[in-house]
């Protein structure tokens, strides 16, 4: 005796192809989840910037004299490290799009090294600051400075951890020119973290 099982011919065996994007509609770079995280980050810093502006309005003398107490060399150093790291990540994404996995790994490793420059400079700057007595009791400007820059440092640490993960995944061949949303999602996070530093830097090191 044989048992015949027939499937309805209309059941699809593969996922339907995505509809083509309408012109001008744009796309979600990376992933939706990453953009939820990025907008949380933007909201967090928007609130901290609001606190900064209010504190500055109430203590204009302290903020006017503030930048002279900090190291402009360190501030410029952070900026150059993050910008160069972001440039490497952008080049890595382009290399992946054209299918050059080796170049992607090389650019990502370079981005990681420059990214590490940020906490490395932070160590030297903190040693300098503490030697000059610039700790949590050094006034409203320094407290605002530590609050914003330490929060940003935490985000840089998340980014560096994410970068390590993406480098390993790229090395293992997890991304292809057609599907590399993980790499792109990380790149978006890293560039936004970079942008936030471009806002913090002039507030504390230039403007006062």
């Amino acid at each position, binding site marked *: 005796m044989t048992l015949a099982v027939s499937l309805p011919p209309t059941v699809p065996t593969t996922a339907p192809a995505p509809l083509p994007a309408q012109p001008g509609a*744009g796309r*979600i770079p990376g992933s939706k989840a990453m953009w939820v995280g990025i*907008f949380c980050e933007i909201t967090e810093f928007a609130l901290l910037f609001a606190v900064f*502006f209010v504190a500055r*309005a*109430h203590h204009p003398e302290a903020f006017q004299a503030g930048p002279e107490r900090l190291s402009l060399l360190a501030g410029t150093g952070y900026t150059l490290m993050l910008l*160069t790291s972001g440039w490497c990540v952008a080049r890595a994404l*382009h290399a992946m799009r*054209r299918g050059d996995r080796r170049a992607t790994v090389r650019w990502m490793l370079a981005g990681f090294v420059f990214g590490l420059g940020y906490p490395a400079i932070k160590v030297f700057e903190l040693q300098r600051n503490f030697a000059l007595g610039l700790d949590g009791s050094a006034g409203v400007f320094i407290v605002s400075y530590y609050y914003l820059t330490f929060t940003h440092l935490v985000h840089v640490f998340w980014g560096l951890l994410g970068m390590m993960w993406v480098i390993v995944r790229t090395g293992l061949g997890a991304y292809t020119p057609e599907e590399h949303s993980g790499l792109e999602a990380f790149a978006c996070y890293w560039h936004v973290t970079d942008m936030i530093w471009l806002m913090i830097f002039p507030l504390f*090191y230039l403007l006062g």
Partner: protein
Amino acid sequence: MSPVDKIGDRRIDLAWLMLVLLSVGGAGIGSADANAVLVAVGVSLVMAIKLRLVCTYFLELHEAHPRIRRAVLAFCHGMPILVTLTTAFGDTLSRLTGALIG
């Protein structure tokens, strides 16, 4: 590497170079012995140009969904404007928020 890929890479390289030059050159604005509002306008302009370069060439925001593009650009344009406004009208902001601070 195709010519199109080379042009794409060249654009990113030029954007990075511009960002570095603006960062190093812009660092001098803060030490300029000028009116605080003028310094704030200069600093805000440099900030806005740098943010725009990152948005366009690194983040590729022009290809993103309009909602994402608008939200990120609002943040990037709003910040330099707020820097200038809060410098020019610091007294007003202080009065308005005085009740909150106590």
